[in-house]
Structure formats: C-alpha cells, structure tokens
C-alpha cells in the first residue's frame, strides 16, 4: 500500500485505550518502554504516558529534557483544562528541539519506530512526538570503494542525517533543497531528494519525484533497490544511474545540475541523470592538474575499450586473420599453440571464467588469508596451466591484462557491463572473426544510442554533438576554461564569467 493510502485510525482520548492499542500492535516486544507520569498541576492531575523503544533513543535526552522537566513542573499560572492548553503547556516544558504531534495511529507508530518518544496525554486524542533519536552509528570514515590520492577523505555513512550534513557543509547556499519521503512498507526507509534550485532541471525533477512516488514495495534496503525501480531502460547492461560514496562527488554533481537521492541505511547515494561519459570520470580528475588528469582520463577510455575487446580481438586475429600479425609474432604464437588441446575460443572462455571465479573469491575471502590465496591463484593457475600445456602463455597474458584494465574504470557498475559484454563479443569473434566483432560493436553502439537517462541521451555530448560540453569528456580543460555547466543537464549555464584569465604573468614576475 502506498503511503497515501494507509487507513488513518485516530487515537482515542482514553489513555489506557491508547496504551492497550500500542501494546497489542507492537506485540509486547521487550524493548518497548512505557513510562507513566503524573503531572501535578494545582487544578488537576494530568496523566501522561511516555512510550519509546530502548536502543533507538538517546536515553540521556529523555531523562534530562523530558522526564526531568515534567517531574519538576511547578506552574501555578497555567491551569489548563481544555486540551489545547495542556498541549501548549507541555510544549513549554519539554525542552526538546523538535516537537510534533500525531493524531492517528500511523503517525504515532511511525514516530515510535523511528526512535522518537511518544507522549500520550489522558483526555487528548493527539500525542506529542519528541525527537530523541540516538543510536550506535558508524563514524565518518574513509571511502572504501572510490578512493583518491588527493582530495577529501570523507565518505557518506548509513545515517541520512549525517549525509545531509556532509552535503550542507560542501554547499552553503540557500538554494540547496532537501525533500524527503518514505518508501517501503516494512522498512519505511527515509529517502531525501537533493538538488540545487535554479540549476537542476525542473522536468527531470518532476520525473524523479513521480517515479519515486510510484514505488510500492516491501523494503528498500539499499540504493540499488531504488535504482532498479526508477531506471529508464530495463534490458540493458549499461547503468543509467550513478552511485557514489563520496560527498564531494555528490556535491559536484549537484552543482552541475544533477539530482541526488539519499537513502537511509546505505552510504551510497544515487545521482541522476547521467551520461555514459560520466562513468569514466573520477573526482580525482578535478583534483590533479589538468594535463595529468587528461592523460589519465584517456588511459581510462583506452582501458575500458581494452577490457571489452581484447580477448575477442585476440581470438579473431589468431583464428581468422593470421595475415594481420607480423611474421615473427605469428611464428611465436604458432609455436606456443602446438600441443594445446583446445581451440582458442574455448581456451579464452576457460581462462576468463577462471578469472571471474578468482575475483569473486577475492572479494569473499577473509582478510588474513587473502594475499596468500591470490598469489596462489595467479601463479599456480596461470603459470602451471601454461607449463602443463593446457593453455598458451599468450592467452594468460591477454586475460590478465583484460582483467587489470577492467579495474581502471572508476565506476563499478560500468565495469560490470564491460565484463558481461566481453563474453558476448568473444562468441561473435570466435564464429565470425573481426566481422563478428564489428557487428557486436555496432549492436552495442546502437543500443547505447537509444538509451536515455531521464530524458538525457546516454551518449551526449558526443551524440548529439554539443560543442560546449566536450571540454570535459576526453580531456579536462583547466578550470578557467570550464566556464559553462553541461547544457544537457541544465539551462542555467554560466558557471563563472566567460574565460577569466589566470593570474597575469606580469604580476608574478617581481
């Protein structure tokens, strides 16, 4: 059921009935604390019950800011008799920053289960919800997956409030907006949509909101769940939504007009809309000088292509197009293949699958055993297989180089696409040679050209060609040249005044 469709059962005015209701609904779990209080006003007794869940709340806050003031209340002036008055009185006494009220059961339970304290008042059919959440949380750490040599070393955590704080610390503009909603029937995961007002495209924003609101599911445990629900094209290996663990990457995206989706419970936030070329950019490109950054970026593009094509090229050339190799290389390879039992395609598949197994094993292995097993894997499997005559040495080199090139791609979801496509291309290469590879590449190209990420074509700005945006694709021009934001994301273009000059050399001479 969607959030808007939940039946709203109002609370009753009877305190005991409410408490009974809470006990039944929550099943009398042992971590629910129900604390009755009596307020002594001169005119009358006021019964209160505090309900909270131990472990989700910050006990000190409850003791100091709720229970303490309530117990020591001495207010002779406010002889409140109608319910409005009592609420106002309590709002004056309870010294918690955020104090809201719940008029129906849904909001009440939501409040309690999120770690707030519910204050039920006898005779009042509304409950006060005081924000007291505090639980064990992981401190801000270095990012595990997307590391840089130079640059900030903070990473998002599982707590959504910490994440929004990290973003606020990067972008101190009043235009930064957060809009929250809860998704997931059982998990009620808090989702926050973040964008920069005036820069983000309103059509895309509307579309994002529409898609998020139409998700109806049991649980949202990670951002990938949301990703799969809201992404554009279903049957594609290419990712259309980017994710990152780094606040600086997220902030950079916001400043370019992207829309960030923060999800409680996971440090990975989603960025949309994205193009293909964004996956091959890393934050490090912007923290190093533009010349080395451009060079490294070109290497990344090359590695991506190599990781997709190298095994297929090897298979195609050595089985179909022997004339392309220089003679000495051909003779060397031919000598290596003497005595190898399998055809090149089968050999390639064997080695690739072996490598995938090794890689998976490397991820699951406990840290202590890790290095030993990887050495064993690499040396034993590779070297020994060659010596035993099962595979040729050239094939081992090809497979290892492919695997290493795969790691160069900064975004893992794109690297995965390359891994999957590789097999498809290998089959084509093994049956039709270079023609097969060409057909495969054309299919992939056509497929990529037809993908749109929230209305932005996947291959922009190369196709359709937008001249201003090409400054940051294959190479990175220095900051003083990057004076416009990418136009496919936003119409608010001016990032800075047109091409300001760097500090004039003449001034530096003295």
């Amino acid at each position, binding site marked *: 059921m969607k959030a808007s469709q939940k039946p709203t059962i109002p609370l009753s005015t009877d305190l005991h009935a409410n408490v009974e209701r809470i006990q039944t609904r929550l099943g009398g779990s042992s971590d629910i604390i129900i604390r009755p209080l009596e307020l002594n006003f001169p005119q009358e007794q006021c019964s209160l019950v505090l309900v909270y869940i131990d472990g989700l709340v910050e006990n000190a806050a409850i003791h100091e800011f709720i229970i303490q003031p309530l117990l020591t209340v001495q207010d002779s002036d406010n002889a409140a008799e109608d319910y409005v008055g009592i609420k106002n009185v309590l709002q004056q006494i309870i010294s918690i920053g955020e104090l809201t009220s719940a008029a129906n059961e849904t909001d009440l339970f939501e409040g309690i289960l999120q770690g707030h304290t519910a204050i039920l008042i006898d005779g009042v059919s509304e409950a006060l919800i005081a924000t007291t959440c505090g639980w064990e949380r992981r401190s801000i750490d270095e990012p595990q997956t997307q590391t840089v040599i130079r640059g900030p070393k903070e990473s998002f955590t599982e707590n959504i409030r910490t994440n929004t704080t990290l973003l606020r610390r990067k972008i101190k503009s009043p235009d930064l907006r957060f809009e929250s909603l809860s998704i997931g029937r059982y998990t009620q995961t808090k989702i926050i949509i973040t964008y920069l007002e005036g820069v983000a495209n309103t059509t895309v924003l509307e579309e994002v909101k529409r898609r998020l609101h139409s998700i109806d599911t049991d649980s949202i445990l990670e951002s990938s769940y949301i990703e799969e629900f809201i992404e554009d094209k279903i049957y594609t290996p290419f990712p259309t939504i980017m994710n990152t663990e780094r606040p600086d990457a997220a902030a950079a995206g916001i400043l370019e007009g992207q829309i960030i989706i923060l999800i409680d419970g996971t440090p990975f936030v989603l960025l949309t809309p994205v193009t293909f070329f964004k996956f091959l950019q890393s934050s490090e490109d912007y923290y190093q000088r533009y010349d080395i950054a451009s060079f490294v970026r070109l290497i990344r593009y090359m590695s991506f292509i190599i990781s997709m094509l190298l095994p297929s090229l090897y298979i195609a050339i*050595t*089985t*179909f197009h*022997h*004339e392309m190799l220089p*003679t000495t290389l*051909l*003779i*060397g*390879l*031919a*000598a*290596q*293949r*003497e005595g*190898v039992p399998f*055809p*090149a395609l089968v050999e390639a598949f064997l080695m690739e699958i072996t490598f995938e197994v090794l890689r998976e094993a490397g991820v699951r292995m406990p840290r202590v055993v890790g290095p030993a097993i990887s050495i064993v894997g690499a040396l034993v499997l590779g070297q020994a297989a060659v*010596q035993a005559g099962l595979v040729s*040495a050239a094939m081992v080199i090809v497979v290892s180089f492919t695997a290493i090139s795969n790691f160069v791609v900064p975004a893992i979801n794109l690297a995965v696409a390359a891994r999957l496509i590789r097999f498809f291309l290998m*089959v*084509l290469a*093994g*049956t*039709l*040679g270079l023609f097969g590879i060409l057909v495969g590449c054309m299919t992939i190209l056509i497929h990529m050209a037809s993908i749109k990420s929230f209305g932005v074509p996947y291959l922009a700005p190369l196709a359709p060609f937008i001249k201003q945006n090409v400054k940051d694709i294959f190479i990175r021009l220095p900051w003083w040249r990057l004076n416009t934001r990418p136009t496919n994301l936003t119409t608010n273009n001016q990032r800075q005044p047109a091409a300001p000059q760097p500090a004039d050399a003449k001034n530096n001479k003295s």
Partner: protein
Amino acid sequence: MLIKLRILTKSFPILLLCTLLTGCWDRTELNKIGITSATSIDWVNNHWQVSYQLVIPQSISSQSAMGTSNQQAPVMVFSTVGDSIQTAIQRASLEMPRTLFFAHNRVMIIGEDAARKGIGQLIDNYLRSATSRETVSVLITRGTGRKILEQLVPMEKIPGAAIQNMLLNEDKHNSDLKQVMVYQLAMSMSGDSGYSTVPEIFIAGRGVESTNVEELKSTKAETKLKMGRLAVFKKDQLIGWLSLNDGFGINWIMNRIDQTVLFFSCTPGSKHVQSAVHIIHAKTRLKPTQQNGQWVMKADVQATAQLIENGCDIDPSKREGIKALEKLANHAVTTSMQDALRSTQAMKADVLGFATSIHKKDPKAWKQMKENWDEIFPQIPLETTVNISIERLGMSSKSFVDILKGKQE
C-alpha cells in the same frame, strides 16, 4: 497474439546467434596453418612445379621447452606438380597435414624455364587471389627455383625472410639491383613498352649445399645464396640478361638510386678503380625533347655524396681537388648510363621508361610511334648532365697513400 509476435521478434536475434555456434566456417587454428615463407615456380616436363618453403614454428621460436628442437631445420621444402598453378597448389593437400597460408610469403622465385615459357598466368594468380600479397618480391634463378628454397642461410632463421632482406639491403644500399614486387612487375609488363627487369639469385660456390643444419655449424659455408644478373622480360617472357653494371646504369637513368657507392678511377676511362664516394641522395630528371624531328632523351642527374675512399693523388681539401674528384665521379656515372643504354638498345628492350616519358609528354606523337617502338627505341640517343657534389670528406682529408708517397721522397 501480438505479444507472442513481439516475443518472437525480440528473441530472433538471440536464436540467430545460436545458429552461429553450429559452424564457424572460416576458423583455422594457428597450429593448423602452414606458414609459407618463400615459394618458387618451375616448368618441368611441361607441367608447372610449385615448391613451398614452410616454416616450422617450434624450431624457430625460443618458447619451447624441448631441448631437442635445435636439431630440427627451421624450414621444410616440398613441391607439387600440376597443369595450372592452382592445380599444383591444390595437390599440396595430398601430402601436407596443414593448409598452406601464403599471406606471409616474402619471396617468389621463378625458374629460368618457367620464365622463358611466360609467367603471365602466375601474375594473374597473384592479382586474383585475395590472400596473396602483391608486395611479394620476385626473383629469377638459373636452374630450378626449388634449389634456392632448400638452401639455408647462416645469419637468419627463415631463409625466405633472409632472401628478402638481402634484396632490400641491395636495393637500399647498393642500388645495383632493385627489388621488384609483383604489382610493379604487373604494371611494367602492361605498361607502354612492355619490358621489365627482374633480379637474379643463384647459389654461388661449389661443394655441399647448405640444406642441412649440420652444415651451418661450421664457420664457413661452402655454398651460399648470391644475387647476380638482371633478367629482361618482354611482356611475360624472359628474353635475355643484363649485367650488374648495366643494372646500375639503368637505375641511374630511371631515378631509382637510393644510396650507393660509386667507384671511379683516377683518370677517366681507366679501368683501375681507386676511389669511391658514397652517394646519399640522387635524383635524375628524364625529359624527352625533339631535336630536328628526332627524339632525344635528356637525363639530368643531381646527387650529393661523401668521399669514403681516396686512392688518387688528388688533395680533396682544396677546391680544385674536390672539383677534380667530382669530375671523375660524373664521368663514371655518365659511362655507366651510356653502357646501360647500349646494352638495352642492343636487346631492343626499353626497360628505361622512355616510352612512358614520351607518352606522357606528347600523347599524339606516342600514338604514331607505338607500333614501331621496338625499332625506334634503339635509335634514341641519351644526353646526360651529371652533377655530383661531394659534400663531406669523412674523417681525414688527404689520401693516406699519398702521404706515404710523400714520406718516401
């Protein structure tokens, strides 16, 4: 119904892909191809005999862990016979476990008998086949081509590559004999004059032929491959031979000199060669002109050289010395060119490109001369102007012999 149609059409490409797995029609593994490094064509007993020199990869590559591979020869040679060239090649499957692969073929050696019969068919084969390279060098030999293929060359593992390297070396540094590739041969055979030249290779020395790896273990080889004369073809048939000197002169006339060493004597006309210059750049402009209704070819040679051997008593460190040496060099080139002209005119073979020059200059006149070119060509004189400038002298200036003579007195 419509959904089923959509599923069918969407899964069609995948089904298509599966059918591919049933047969990879063009796939050949590396260890199923026989890499040919040299081929030869002979005409034996009214049949074409095609011989192939196949590379044995294990004995060449340093990869193999077997120690015994050193004992095996790096190549093997065998021949097949047929009525047409392709028939002969086809017969190879009767004795060969691998398919012949010609893309790395470097050299084509034509036996003398085959050359006299006519190699037009061979050229057709080359042009028609998609896999054979037209950049294969063509060589001709005195006896049968097969003998050349069987010869091992001490410095290189693959004799076919060795022969081509020898040819390239000669082409670039000596310029006596130029490398002729199949397409060049095709172009000159079908060109205006129809005459072409092909270098010759033969086995020099007497004794046991180096067909055995054991033979190579000694420091001297009793027989070796050597390049020799220049063969002249009219259309596609061999008609005669020219000497190395003629070849040298021909290359001067046709602007085909890359780098060479020019020898000359100290007095013009003498045969006693004493000095040499290394020609670094050379350019010849060949222009046809008409004088009194008679066609005359003007050859204008410009070259730069470096003195590498000085046996004359001329002091090159003086202006006059250099001029004198240059004059001697010029004379040597002129003699060479005129000798070449005489030899080719004696054969009525226009391998000098005169016909093409005239055709390009004056197509109408060419149309009239085309029929009788064989008679007209021997009458055409060549006027030469040679200008060699000796730019550098090397590390010393005066001739050492000269210095010694000076010391004796």
